[in-house]
């Protein structure tokens, strides 16, 4: 598992993943969502995304 990969063509910048992240590793920016090194690859961001724009597919 790796850090979440966000498909910015599908992402609606809604912040669902940001508020769900249990370790506060995600940040909503105007044109992107940043993920920092606190990420534990727990997968909740992938699960909560309303449009399936987040994946933890591995490097």
């Amino acid at each position: 598992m790796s850090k979440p990969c966000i498909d910015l063509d599908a992402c609606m910048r809604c912040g669902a993943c940001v508020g769900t992240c249990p370790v506060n590793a995600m940040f909503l920016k105007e044109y992107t969502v940043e993920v920092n090194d606190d990420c534990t690859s727990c997968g909740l961001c992938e699960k909560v995304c309303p449009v399936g724009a987040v994946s933890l597919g591995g490097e």
Partner: protein
Amino acid sequence: MSESLEYDVLVIGGGPAGSTAARYAAKNGAKTLVIEKRQEIGSPVRCGEGVSLSWLEELEIEDYDRWTAARVKGARIYSPSGHMLQITEKMAGDEVGVVCERDLFDKDMARLAVEAGADFMMKTYAVSLIEEDGKFKGVMARRMGKELEIRADLVIGADGWESQVGRWAGLYEAIPPKDIMTCFQYRMTGIEFDEDYTHFYLGSEAPGGYVWVFPKGPRTANVGLGIHMSSLDGSKTPKDYLDELIASREEFSKGEPVDMVAGAVAVTHPPETVTVDGLMLVGDASRVVDPMTGGGIVNGLKQGKIAGEFAAQCVKEGRFDKEYLQEYEKRWRDRLENRLWRNYMAKEKATTLDDGTFDKLIDSLSDIELDRVSIMAILEGVQKKYPELIKEFEDML
């Protein structure tokens, strides 16, 4: 050297709760600034836009035409097999309301704050809290790409569901997936439905949540759904659920989407505390979304008023310590907490019900004359038709 500003009260976030907190802080004499990270208040909309009007008087608002898209006569709640419960304005008091234009709504709340004396700063986001001697004294911000120091005696975090202020202040508790509702909505146009009502569909089309159809104008509605995160198995997203639902109903599939909205809400119980030295939270950031409906506007407004009035009192008294801020905790909890807990328990129950139980529940209510919507009236209706079902709800009595 970065620019530096000084205020009594700094509000992070220009949504309804933030603007209302700023409005009542400014109105009561506090020098108040709202910073908003977006370049436009209220846009993009992240909301189903249904709102009651039960709060107009409390919030001293007379004119709601400017942000009303559609007035409705009532709400219709459907079970999976099509039983329907109609809740009219008369039954629900003023709980039945309007479908709003959230972008206009938020700007109108901002106008009221400005008219009360608050300053606004757009495209400005907080980068970090300024902490001195264990007390929060403002934020470091970025405005149009430039660093900016904003010092304030009291910081009000009104930065929504994904609140950073709450996290920085150490007020964050991870929300369990069962208390997160993830949502997707289209504004559909060219569809057929009864435009005089808001429509709610219960059952497995939106596991743990519901489908809504809220009229926005002629043959146009917000058609959306919220699903509890713990009901998702990873095979389908909320968008997939909604696309399937629209494709399966001719009255919707004949229309087309003209807007897409995604988002999540915390349908959780009230948090332990929303205050620390020099800082308090309001609105979605303080988790006052109604756990039963996922609606956050009204509680945010009511709490925002309480927060703003109390912030001005803090300024007058020169007290911003956590001990003094307990009065804010007391006031908003007195106003909102009982109902939040009650609806949280109801939500916990509702998410366990299967389609058959929803059918019996709505069926038992649809043929009795409800003159008031109350938990007791509902339970009496259920008792009459499906006495065996009442056991399901005994723990709520």
